[in-house]
């Protein structure tokens, strides 16, 4: 067995032992860890991604690749990626806004919908500037080399 394999078996072995340790401790304290409820939520987390988030992303990607014309597409796709990643956090905050026990906590005191729209507007503006510069560059190239046409 070469050294690389030994290292991999070692890391993997430590990994399996660590998983076993965590699982054992969870099972040893069922009154606070509620293993059955936890198992349901773990499966739910997998399904949330595999059945909801991933198909949604694939669907939007498929539509964008067919609807948006070539030159604008990278900027639309890039803007959607950045905007979606920001929105994932913001949506949770928007949903919990105003549901805290006291203003003394200074918790969720902002208008997160407005904040999200500000951030998305910035992302859109950056993409818009990017698109404008691509168009300008292409136009300049065209006017410089009329012989190509």
């Amino acid at each position, binding site marked *: 067995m070469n050294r*690389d394999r030994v290292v*991999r078996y070692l*890391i*993997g072995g*430590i*990994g*399996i*032992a*660590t*998983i076993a340790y*965590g*699982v054992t*401790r*969870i099972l040893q304290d069922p009154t*606070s*860890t*509620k293993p059955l409820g*936890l198992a349901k*939520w*773990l*499966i739910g*987390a*997998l399904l*949330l*991604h*595999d059945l909801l988030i*991933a198909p949604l992303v*694939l669907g939007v*990607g498929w539509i964008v690749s067919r609807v948006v014309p*070539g*030159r604008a*597409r*990278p900027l639309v*796709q*890039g*803007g959607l*990626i*950045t905007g979606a*990643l*920001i929105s*994932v*956090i*913001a949506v*949770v*905050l928007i949903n919990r806004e105003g*549901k*805290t*026990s*006291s203003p*003394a*906590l*200074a*918790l*969720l*005191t*902002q208008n*997160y919908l407005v*904040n999200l729209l500000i*951030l998305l507007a910035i*992302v859109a503006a950056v993409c818009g500037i990017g698109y404008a510069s691509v168009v300008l560059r292409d136009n300049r190239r065209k006017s410089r080399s009329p012989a190509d046409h």
Partner: protein
Amino acid sequence: MLPPLSRLLTTKPPFWPEFHSPLRGPAITARVGRVLGLAFGICFVTGLLSHYQYHPWSWLPVPASPSWGYRLTQGIHVITGIACIPLILVKLWSVFHRLFVWPPVRGAVHALERASVAILVASSVLQLITGLFNILQFYPWPWGFVEVHYWLSYVIIGSLLLHIAIQLPAIREGLSTRLSDDRGGDQPSEASSRGGLSRRQVLIATGAGVGVVAITTVGQVLPIAEPIALLAPRRPSRGPQDLPVNNTARNAGVIQRATSSSYRLSVTGPRSLELSLSELEALPTLRRHLPIACVEGWSRSADWRGPALLSLVTQVGGSADSFVVLRSLQEGGYSVSTIQGSQLEHALLATHLNGERLSIDHGYPLRLIAPDRAGVLQTKWLHRIEVR
């Protein structure tokens, strides 16, 4: 007649889903995975440090310096954890087509590998979601957050190590492949020729999203970034007396006893002592600039004034080597904390905050404040101190 098993295993059934994206592939997966793996490592280590705040070994108490230690490590823990949410989504996107490999299971080793990925993904996604919900004080699940967050972190780190061990050759290959000429995916990345995004641009867009999330949340730890903290759950400057609280007097059920004229602080040890609020205020006071650093990741510095805890400890016959238990008027929750070592030497029993008397939500009439200490261990509404 049924097709032979061997053919079924090599030929995908027609209904089996199939995706083609020129963007996915080991080059991008390995790069995103490297950052995510590092982030998980940071969360694990800072999480263990936080756990140690609550359960220190008696021979190795949490040190008093640097006074901003827990503020830094827990701030990093929470901001990194939040940033992991967009990161893991991109990581999962980059390997989503592998969920539908055919045949689904090639053998025992392959089954084990897939099971380890399922454990890693399920536990990571759940940990990140529940972690975020916890800092919003939202608990829609049946289990105790602290216990599960702690033990699940071992499951995650373990399955991450196993995942790295299994995928090491692919990781190496992915990292050494240039983004532009990765052929490990469905197709080579000549996407821009078809008018789409390149792999490099996917990484840039990902970095921008994760960066915006980090920059707009870090303001709950870093005052200089608070004006742009558009996605921070807390705005620490908005709390009463210029400092947020994590538990109100009403919620703790202490209003009546904390404001009663019969309030006394009892200090017990080899000797014992009872002090009214005016007697406490007649003691020599110290002023310290110390942060409240919450386990939920927010923190803010404040000016505290009050007698030194150690002076009362020595009055009842204790010393800097004593083990001190502090009890709140609150019942249940974080009503008791212990202190020893250098934190004991530097601790104040604060009566004043930012030049004013403590408000009831900040622990009136008396609270503990010590350096490098988790917020909920800065026990409020103190009424009993036991020197051991």
